[in-house]
């Protein structure tokens, strides 16, 4: 019998405690509120450049961006990708390190490396990308990176790149060149392919 009443008493007291907590939260909502009104207020991006010494490391997970002028076509990023969402096709350029203006090919990267290959195709399928960042580390020219963060000078952050069609998520970075112009740079059908 005493257990019966103790049960009732326990129920009342513990339930009142619970009610008290929700009440406290309700009247303190101005202080406790955690909601962000999304389109107007954005989540503050973690401060990267302030506290970080490791500026060479790109620690943001966002859309992949390629500076195609710096790309030497070494295929390291393609091999590093665990989901095979990067596709690169290159062609041997006749003259190493020379600008070929008619197809928009620059001979030197911003690091000063002479380019031996013309990148004719550089596609990234962001619908398959798993944002693991593994393609970023091996790049010798730092030309593939995730947008924003330390790279915001090169490219602002782009988290919200939603599209209506899935194929619009395939980003093509290589410069589009007509085939006739390209033809004269193809050295006797020696296509290098991964």
């Amino acid at each position, binding site marked *: 019998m005493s*257990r019966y009443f103790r049960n009732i008493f326990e129920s009342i007291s513990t339930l009142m405690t619970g009610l008290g907590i929700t009440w406290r939260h309700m009247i303190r909502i101005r202080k406790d509120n955690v909601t962000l009104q999304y389109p107007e207020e954005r989540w503050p991006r973690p401060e990267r450049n302030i506290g970080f010494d490791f500026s060479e490391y790109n620690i943001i997970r966002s859309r992949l961006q390629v500076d195609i002028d710096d790309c030497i076509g070494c295929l390291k990023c393609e091999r590093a990708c665990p989901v095979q969402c990067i*596709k690169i096709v290159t062609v041997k350029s006749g003259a190493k390190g020379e600008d070929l203006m008619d197809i928009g090919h620059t001979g030197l990267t911003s690091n000063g490396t002479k380019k031996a290959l013309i990148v004719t195709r550089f*596609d990234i*399928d962001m619908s398959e990308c798993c944002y693991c960042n593994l393609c970023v580390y091996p790049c010798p020219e730092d030309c593939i990176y995730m947008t924003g963060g330390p790279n915001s000078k090169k490219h602002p952050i782009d988290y919200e790149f939603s599209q209506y069609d899935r194929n619009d998520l*395939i980003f093509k970075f290589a410069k589009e060149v007509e085939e006739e112009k390209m033809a004269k740079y193809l050295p006797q059908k020696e296509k290098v392919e991964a």
Partner: protein
Amino acid sequence: MSDEQTKLIQEAVAKALAGNMDMINNIEDRVTRSKAKAALVKAKREAKKGAATSEETPSEEIVQAESPPEKSLNQKVAEAIEKKFPASLAGDDVDGHIQLTGANWFEIAHYLKDNPDFLFDSLQCVTGFDLGIENDLEVRYNLHSMTHNHTIEIRIQTDRKNPKIPSVEQVWRIGDWFERETYDMYGIIFEGHRNMTRILLPDDWEGWPLRKDYETQETYHGIVVQKVKDGWE
């Protein structure tokens, strides 16, 4: 806790240790009952500890007296199996693992689980294995003992064409799902398993996906299985 309760608990624990669980189960008050059960567990554990220490001390003395090169656990287990089930070992090399023929596997499993020296009461992992397109299939069992805190690995090879291994599902209950998973991926049939069906893949899947010679189905329910993405040759 009142004295009466304490007395009751002590009495009940004493009876339970003697094998009569009725008294403990008949305690009306839930709190007292749970306390009694906790006390019983504690008492049992202490008894076990006492037994273990009393067992360990003489064996240590023997080791010190004879001082032969210390046997590894794998060797001990292999010897015990060889003694109890002759001709069930396949291969003498027992350093990393113990290779069995698989003939008496169910009985050996029971023995390993119940033998007080080993007490492998937990089956950690069952790994199906393909030794190569030309070779056999293999199943690897990682056993673990909660009491002694030691582990061994047991491997059993089986024919690729007709893979069959005795099931240990009734020894370690988790073997049920592990063996179904292995069957699902390798097509190894575990004899004596009560529900040998696919577990992760759909029932009408063709082939055994983790075998090295597996080839993807052309169509599944009329849908062509794409090997390469559109425009991604």
